[in-house]
């Protein structure tokens, strides 16, 4: 394993409260030293990080790589390159694959696919219920032992609250984190857009914010009842932020994230019928977006996730309600986070923490920091480098992003995962050509 010297970058490591220009030394796959040069250190790789930012590799709490089952949309090979090029060093995979991640065999298959893709730090999230059907508990303990980091029912709501209660109790017994995207199935009513002025004008079936807030309120009560550790993912509205704030104040063991695109887009952006903006939960109002940003700045929302959902072209080719929801979002994660910093919604330290330290804490992982002895997951990025979102600069198999064609600021130059350089911008051009 190589010895790496990351030279003279601005190191921002929120967990260790470091923000200074200096060096990072890596050996044996671990962080050897930050700033101080260790004795007898002869690097075989030197990364010149002058003028760039060096931070912990990003941890994504909600990703879909589509395999197994939907390799026409994306593969481990394509998406792990996309992740590496985005500075993401740890991925948590939602269980709604085909077959569902609800048996140890599928969890092991995921691990195998990850190894084969040369990107081992992939954690499957197991199904909370068998086949995500919301009727029987999954074998959570066996799944945990097979490497699953949490349990979730993905987009499927558990309609029966008694089953949800039992699932949370059982998960709590094995100290498993439960991840929930709160959504009341019935109130959601097969909608495809925020129930508001835009959906009304365009005759689009609406999803009221209450589909989220009511489900969230129910879950919070069950957290209180069961003592289960719950992380709420991809929140979309003002009153969800308020509910999380109150729950934390009350002392519940909960955490929450927001998908990066929810911090930038609103219902108005879907006009008229642009399926690249079709996501779940739907983009809501300016006020909701403002609260999500404030929630992130105040720490009510712990982290940002990519909510990466690559699609094939056909999935987005149709009348808006008939298209599949989701955005291919790994590669725009960093520039969109930096845009929040440029717009003074959050500080750069907060932005980096929300992608590294904070999700690591949610997962109870010893990652997301440049702590000596930790696995060396490092992202080096140039905050000022502009690039256009186009085929030449894109690695994901899914080009379903509303940012296609736009010029964004901030680009990853190097990604180190457990001491291996898994991405370098300089050499990536050659790969794109080959």
């Amino acid at each position: 394993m190589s010895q790496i010297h990351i030279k003279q970058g601005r190191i921002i490591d929120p967990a260790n409260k470091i923000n200074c220009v200096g060096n990072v030394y890596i050996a044996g796959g671990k962080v050897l030293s930050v700033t101080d040069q260790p004795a007898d250190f002869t690097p075989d790789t030197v990364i010149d990080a002058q003028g760039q930012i060096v931070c912990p590799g990003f941890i994504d709490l909600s990703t879909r790589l589509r395999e197994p089952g939907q390799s026409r949309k994306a593969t481990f090979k394509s998406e792990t390159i996309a992740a590496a090029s985005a500075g993401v060093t740890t991925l948590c995979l939602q269980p709604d694959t085909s077959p569902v991640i609800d048996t140890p065999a599928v969890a092991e298959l995921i691990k195998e696919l990850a190894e084969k893709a040369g990107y081992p730090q992939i954690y499957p999230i197991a199904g909370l219920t068998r086949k995500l059907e919301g009727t029987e508990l999954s074998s959570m303990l066996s799944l945990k032992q097979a490497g699953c980091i949490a349990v979730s029912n993905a987009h499927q709501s558990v309609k029966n609250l008694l089953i949800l209660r039992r699932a949370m109790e059982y998960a709590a017994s094995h100290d498993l984190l439960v991840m929930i995207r709160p959504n009341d199935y019935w109130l959601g009513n097969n909608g495809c857009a925020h129930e508001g002025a835009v959906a009304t004008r365009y005759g689009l079936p609406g999803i009221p914010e209450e589909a989220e807030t009511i489900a969230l309120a129910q879950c919070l009560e069950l957290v209180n009842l069961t003592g289960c550790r719950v992380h709420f993912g991809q929140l979309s509205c003002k009153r969800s932020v308020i509910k999380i704030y109150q729950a934390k104040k009350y002392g519940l063991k909960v955490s929450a994230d927001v998908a990066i695109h929810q911090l930038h887009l609103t219902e108005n952006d879907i006009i008229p019928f642009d399926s690249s903006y079709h996501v779940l939960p739907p983009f809501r109002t300016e006020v909701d977006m403002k609260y999500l940003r404030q929630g992130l700045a105040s720490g009510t929302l712990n982290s940002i996730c990519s909510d990466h959902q690559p699609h094939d072209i056909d999935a987005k080719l149709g009348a808006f309600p008939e298209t599949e929801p989701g955005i291919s979002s790994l590669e725009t994660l960093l520039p969109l986070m930096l845009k929040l910093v440029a717009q003074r919604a959050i500080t750069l330290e907060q932005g980096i923490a929300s992608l590294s330290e904070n999700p690591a804490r949610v997962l109870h992982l010893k990652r997301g920091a440049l702590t000596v002895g930790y696995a060396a997951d490092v992202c080096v990025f140039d905050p000022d480098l502009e690039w256009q979102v186009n085929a030449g600069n894109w690695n994901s198999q899914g080009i379903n992003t509303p940012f296609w064609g736009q010029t964004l600021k901030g680009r990853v130059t190097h990604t180190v995962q457990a001491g291996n350089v898994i991405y370098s911008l300089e050499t990536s051009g050659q790969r794109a050509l080959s």
Partner: protein
Amino acid sequence: MIDNIQLNSEGKLKHFLSIEGLNKGLLTEILDIAESFIGMNDQQIKKVPLLRGKTIVNLFFENSTRTRTTFELAAKRLSADVLSMSIATSSTSKGESLLDTIRNLEAMFVDMFVVRHAISGAAHFIAQHTAPHISVINAGDGQHAHPTQAMLDMFTIRQIKQDFSNLRVAIIGDILHSRVARSQIQALNTLGAAEVRVIAPKTLLPSHVESLGVNVSHDLTTGLKDIDVIIMLRLQKERMTSALLPSESEYFKCFGLTEDKLKIAKPDAIVMHPGPINRGVEIDSKVADGPQSVILKQVSNGIAIRMAVMAMAMQKQGAV
């Protein structure tokens, strides 16, 4: 927001997808051109050669008798070759995608698609993806828009009331699911109606309905006061099974238009309905067939409006 896709670089109508994005001048032009066609209905030879040599395909992904027939007649009176396809029972049920269906027909050198589809946004989608020389007319998409229906209603209103600026118009019934209502509201507001009022129980109104530019009432007896034009909407039977309403009879009791209730509106108020009507559900037969009803006039006017829109959309190709 402006629906630029509907207009060509000279601001002329290219596609007719929704009322939104079209200004008062353009809507008035549609009405005026329709006016010039209306006389033809009484002529011996009901044909003009404006679209001779053009091929128009009626693509009906959803069943409809009246709309399809009037579009077909309109195309024939403009001397176009017209083909009507009910896709609800053909290609798409074999798994062919919407786009494939369109591409196949494009390959047959079509000049215009008239599209009816059960999903909101379908007409926009086709307009965005079809070859640049082809015009698309929306004959109703999901709950979004039905602009030719709205325009024929405007035409009928203008015929009788002349001017929109003093008119108070009530739209009654299932606004939530109605593409007709959405287009009517936009057209009435663009043409400068004094007031558009929607009257329905909350279950049949979309959220933020006021943002469409309407006043809201949940009571027919007070809601009809001072109204010049009453537009009744059709109530689908499914609304009962999806818990939006308790029963047809209760609906009729509250929102059905009877002779007594009609008296609350202005004495010269007209009664309209996009059809097909449910007698005894949203409207009493005596009203539907009564002297204030202009329901059949609407149907006749449908041909002229559709001729006008087709002719205008083909203008860019040298017609008219």
